[in-house]
C-alpha cells in the first residue's frame, strides 16, 4: 500500500526551513544536498501523532502549535501500533488534515515573530524569488524533516516551488511558507522511510543503513526525530559500527528523554488509544467526570515511568509496587488525600491495600470494564493478551450473555456467580477458564476502578489462579505475574516489535534471547531498550525491499517523479 502512495504537490509550494538545529543539535547544520542516491527502501513507518508533534517541537520549537485531527494508525490484531505503522496508509481525508496542519505550522514559522529564528539570509527583494536564499533556508530544515539530507532533485524542486509561490503571492516569506507546507506533507516526513545497504555479515542480505538507524534509535529511545548529533553520527557512518552504535545508544538510554520513549512504548503496548473512546454510564458512575477520565492514562504512565525510569526499578516490580501518582481529580475515586492543589503528587498505597501494582490503577480497571459494570473477562483477557502476550480467541457470535449482564440479580449478586452460570455452556467455559481466573481477583474494583467491598450487598470472592498457583486479590495477581517468565518474555518481545515494526518470525526464540539478557540486567527497562537498539538482528532486513515512493513534483523541466 505504501508503495502506491503518491502525493501530487501541484500547488505553489515553497519550502522554508529552520537554520536552527533541533533543540539537542550540537554542531553546524549541513547545507549539502545528498550526492549519493537514496538507499534501498525497505520499510515505511507512519509517524504516530506523538512522533509528529515531538518532531515539530524539536525542529521548530515547542511554541509552534500543532492543531488538527490525526488519522489513526490501525493496530493489527494482537500487535502494536508500531507494527501497524509499517503498513499504514493515509486516506485522502487524512491527507487533507495533514495538509491543513502543515499550512498552519508553516504559517507560524514564517510569521514576523518566528522567521528570524529559521532564516540566516535575507531575500534581495522581499517580493521576488531568491533561489539562493530559499535554498539556504530549505536545505537544513529539509534535512531535519526527512531525517537525511535532501537530494539535489528535491532541493531544486522545493526551491522552484518557493519561487513560483513567491511570484504568485508577491511575498518571499509567503513563498517559503507554502514550500514548507509541501515538505510537511511529503511521505518522507510523514513516514519514517527506512533504507538499507548490503550486509557485509550476510552475503546477499541487507541491513539498515546509517541514516535509517538514526531514526530507529531516536524514535525508539525518545519518540522523536533524530537530532543534529545523531544525524551527524549517521552521516559519518558511526551507526553501523557496533562499538560506536553501542556507545551512542548507551548515551541516549541514559538521557532523561528516555521517559518519552518509555511512555510511548507502554502506551502502545497497553492499548492506550482505547482511553480516547472510553465511556462510562453517568447514571451508574456519576463520579466518572471528564477530569477523572483524562487523568487515568496519565496516572498509569507516571507510575510506569517512576518505577522503570526514575527509580530504575525491576520491570517485575511494576506489578507489585505501592508507589503511584495522584491528582485532585482522582482523589475521590481512590478515597485518598491529595496534598497538592495542582498537578500530580507521589502517593503510596498503605501496606495491605489491594491497590498495589499496575493492575490496581483505576485506568487499567476502568479501561477493561463495560460502561456500566466491571468485567472479569475483559480484565483477564487484557492481562493475558497485553501483559503475557497470550492471545485469547474472540467469543462466538451466538453467545447468550443474559446471565452475565443481569447485574442486579438477587439470586446471583456477584460477577463470579453470574459467570459461573454463564459457563455452564462448555463452549463459553473453554475461554473463560483462560480469562476469568485473572480477572476475578480484581472484582473489588468496580467499572471505573473504585474500590467496593461488596457487590449488591454480597461479599466478593477474589480468588484467582495462574500457572497453577492460587492467590487472592489484585496483590496476589500482581505477585503471580511478577513471578512468571511469561511476563518478562512478553515485554521483551514487545520491545523488539516496537523497535523494528515487525514481529519476529522465529516463534519466540529471539524474544527468549532478549529476555535472558533482560534478566541478566535485573529486568531494567533501559537495558531492554539498549539491547533491542543494538542487536544486529534488529537491523537485518528479511523482507523484500520496497519500491521508492513516487512523488510527483513540478520542476523546471516538467514533472519530476
Amino acid at each position, binding site marked *: 500500500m505504501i508503495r502506491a502512495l503518491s502525493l501530487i504537490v501541484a500547488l505553489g509550494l515553497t519550502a522554508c526551513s529552520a537554520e536552527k538545529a533541533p533543540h539537542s543539535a550540537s554542531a553546524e547544520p549541513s547545507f549539502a544536498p545528498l550526492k549519493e542516491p537514496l538507499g534501498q527502501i525497505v520499510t515505511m513507518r507512519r509517524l504516530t501523532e506523538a512522533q509528529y508533534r515531538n518532531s515539530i517541537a524539536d525542529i521548530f520549537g515547542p511554541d509552534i502549535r500543532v492543531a488538527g485531527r490525526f488519522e489513526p494508525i490501525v493496530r493489527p490484531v494482537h500487535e502494536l501500533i508500531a507494527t501497524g505503522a509499517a503498513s499504514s496508509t493515509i486516506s485522502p481525508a487524512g491527507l487533507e488534515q495533514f495538509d491543513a496542519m502543515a499550512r498552519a505550522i508553516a504559517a507560524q514559522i514564517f510569521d514576523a515573530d518566528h522567521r528570524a529564528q529559521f532564516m540566516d539570509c535575507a531575500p534581495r527583494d522581499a517580493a521576488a524569488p531568491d533561489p539562493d536564499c530559499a535554498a539556504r533556508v530549505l536545505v537544513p530544515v529539509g534535512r531535519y524533516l526527512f531525517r537525511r539530507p535532501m537530494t539535489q532533485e528535491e532541493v531544486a524542486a522545493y526551491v522552484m516551488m518557493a519561487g513560483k509561490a513567491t511570484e504568485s503571492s508577491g511575498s518571499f516569506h509567503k513563498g517559503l511558507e507554502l514550500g514548507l507546507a509541501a515538505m510537511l506533507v511529503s511521505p518522507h516526513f510523514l513516514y519514517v522511510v527506512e533504507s538499507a545497504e548490503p550486509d557485509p555479515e550476510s552475503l546477499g542480505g541487507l541491513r539498515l543503513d546509517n541514516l535509517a538507524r538514526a531514526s530507529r534509535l531516536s524514535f525508539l529511545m525518545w519518540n522523536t526525530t533524530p537530532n543534529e548529533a545523531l544525524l551527524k553520527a549517521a552521516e559519518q557512518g558511526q551507526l553501523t559500527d557496533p562499538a560506536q552504535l553501542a556507545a551512542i545508544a548507551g548515551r541516549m538510554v541514559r538521557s532523561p528523554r528516555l521517559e518519552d520513549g518509555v511512555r510511548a512504548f507502554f502506551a502502545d503496548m497497553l492499548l492506550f488509544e482505547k482511553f480516547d473512546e472510553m465511556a462510562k454510564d453517568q447514571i451508574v458512575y456519576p*463520579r466518572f467526570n471528564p477530569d477523572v477520565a483524562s487523568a487515568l492514562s496519565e496516572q498509569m504512565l507516571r507510575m510506569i515511568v517512576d518505577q522503570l525510569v526514575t527509580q530504575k526499578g525491576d520491570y517485575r516490580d511494576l506489578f507489585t509496587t505501592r508507589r503511584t501518582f495522584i491528582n485532585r*481529580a482522582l*482523589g*475521590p475515586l481512590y478515597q485518598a*488525600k491529595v*496534598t*497538592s492543589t495542582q498537578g500530580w503528587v507521589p502517593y503510596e498505597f498503605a501496606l495491605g491495600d489491594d491497590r498495589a501494582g499496575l493492575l490496581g490503577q483505576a485506568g487499567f480497571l476502568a479501561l477493561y470494564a463495560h460502561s456500566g459494570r466491571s468485567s472479569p473477562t475483559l480484565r483477564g483477557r487484557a492481562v493475558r493478551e497485553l501483559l503475557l502476550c497470550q492471545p485469547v480467541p474472540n467469543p462466538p457470535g451466538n453467545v447468550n450473555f443474559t446471565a452475565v449482564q443481569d447485574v442486579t440479580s438477587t439470586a446471583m449478586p456477584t460477577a463470579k456467580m453470574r459467570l459461573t452460570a454463564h459457563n455452564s455452556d462448555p463452549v463459553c467455559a473453554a475461554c473463560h477458564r483462560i480469562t476469568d481466573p485473572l480477572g476475578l481477583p480484581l472484582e473489588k474494583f468496580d467499572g471505573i476502578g473504585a474500590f467496593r467491598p461488596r457487590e449488591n450487598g454480597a461479599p466478593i470472592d477474589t480468588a484467582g489462579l495462574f500457572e497453577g498457583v492460587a492467590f487472592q486479590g489484585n496483590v496476589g495477581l500482581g505477585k503471580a505475574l511478577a513471578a512468571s517468565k511469561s511476563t518478562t518474555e512478553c515485554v521483551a518481545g514487545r520491545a523488539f516489535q516496537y523497535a523494528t515494526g515487525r514481529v519476529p518470525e522465529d516463534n519466540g526464540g529471539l524474544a527468549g534471547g532478549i529476555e535472558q539478557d533482560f534478566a541478566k540486567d535485573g529486568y531494567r527497562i533501559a537495558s531492554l531498550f539498549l539491547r533491542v537498539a543494538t542487536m544486529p538482528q534488529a537491523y537485518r532486513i528479511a523482507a523484500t525491499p520496497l519500491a521508492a515512493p513516487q512523488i510527483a513534483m513540478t520542476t523546471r523541466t516538467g514533472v519530476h517523479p
Partner: protein
Amino acid sequence: MIAYRIAALCTASFLAPIAQAQALPAPPANGELGFVFTHFAPAIHQGAQDCPDGLAATLRENYLQTQAPAERLRLLEKPNEAELTKRWTGYAFGPQGTNICTHPALFDRPPQRIVQGKVAQGLDLDEGADADGCGHEPFTSPTGQTGVDNQTWRAMGCVRTWRGVDGTGGDIVRGLTQFLVSGEHTQVLLLTGVDSLQDDPDVSVIYANSEDRAVVDSKQNFMRDASYTVVANAQHRNVLKGRIVDGVLMTDPAQIRLRQTWGQGSERDIRGKRTEYDMTKARLRLTFQPDGSLKGLVGGYQPIWDIMASASIGGEGAATTAGYDCAAMYAALKKLADGDRDPATGQCRRISSAMEAGAIPAFVNDTPPATKVAQQ
C-alpha cells in the same frame, strides 16, 4: 393524591426515628476529620403568618404608592406602561448619578415589610444578655428552642428572592449554592482531636476558605473524599474551639471571616465581586449525620451592609431589573440591627443572622500561618 401525601407523611414519621437511631461512624484513628461545605445560604423558615400584608414591595410597587390613587390607576392602564416604567425606574436614581442600590443610605424611604411570625431558624447568639445590642424580640426555632437571634430573617424574610415559595428557598439560596459548586468561595472545615462523633468535650476546629474549586460529579454534586487546601490568607482561616454534644458539633463564640465572591463569568471563570462574610460572636451548630456528613447552622452578627451585598453590588440593575427597593431594605436592616451598638449614636451596626449549612467528608490540607511565611 391526598392519600399519597398521607402515606408519604406516615413513611416520613416512621423513618425519622430510625434515622436518628442510626449509629454515627467512628472517627479515624488520628482524630482528624475534614469537610467541604456543599450548602451555605440564609436559613429559611416559611412561617404561615410571616408576611400577612404580602411580600416586601418592589420598587415599582413602592413608586406607585407615592402616587395619588387616580394617578396610580392611570399609570396602571396598559397604554401607559411605558410611562410607568420610565417613572418607576427613574425612582431608582438620585442626584449625581447615585442609585438606590449602590447608595441606599442617600434615599429616605420607609422600611420594607418585615417578618411578623414568631418562628425562625437560628441560634441564641446573645444568650439573653444583649449587652451591646439594641433590643429585639427573639424568635423560637422550628424545634422549639427559644431565644433565637435572627433579625436578618425578620428584615429580609418577606423578600421574594430570599423567602422563596412552597418550602423552597429563594434565588439567594440557589445562587449561593451554585457559587459553592462552581468554586467561587469554597469553604472547608477541619476538625482535629476528635475522639467520638457522639460526645467529645474538646475539639479543635479550623473553618476556612480554600482556593480549590469543588470536585463535582457529572450531575454537579459534590464528591466526597476530595482534597482541599486551606487558603494561605490567615484572615480567612478561622481557628475555633469546639465540642461535640449528643452528635452535635458546637463552637465557642468567635469572629469568623470568610471570603465571599458574588457572581461568576463563564462556567469556570471567577471574576465576581469579592466581599467577605464577617460574623462576630459567631458559632457553628452542626449535627453529624449517619453518613458522616454535617448539617446545621452557622450564626453570627454581620454588618448590615453585608446582608444586602448582592443587591448593592448589582447597583441600578438590582433596582430596575430585579426590582429591589434597596433603600427600603436598608431601612429595615438598620431598624432591626441588634449588634455592635455605636456608643456615640446608639445605632447598631451589625445584625444577627443564621446561615443554613451542609458539609460532606473531604480531605483538608491545613496551611498553618508559620508555613505560609516560610513559603513566601
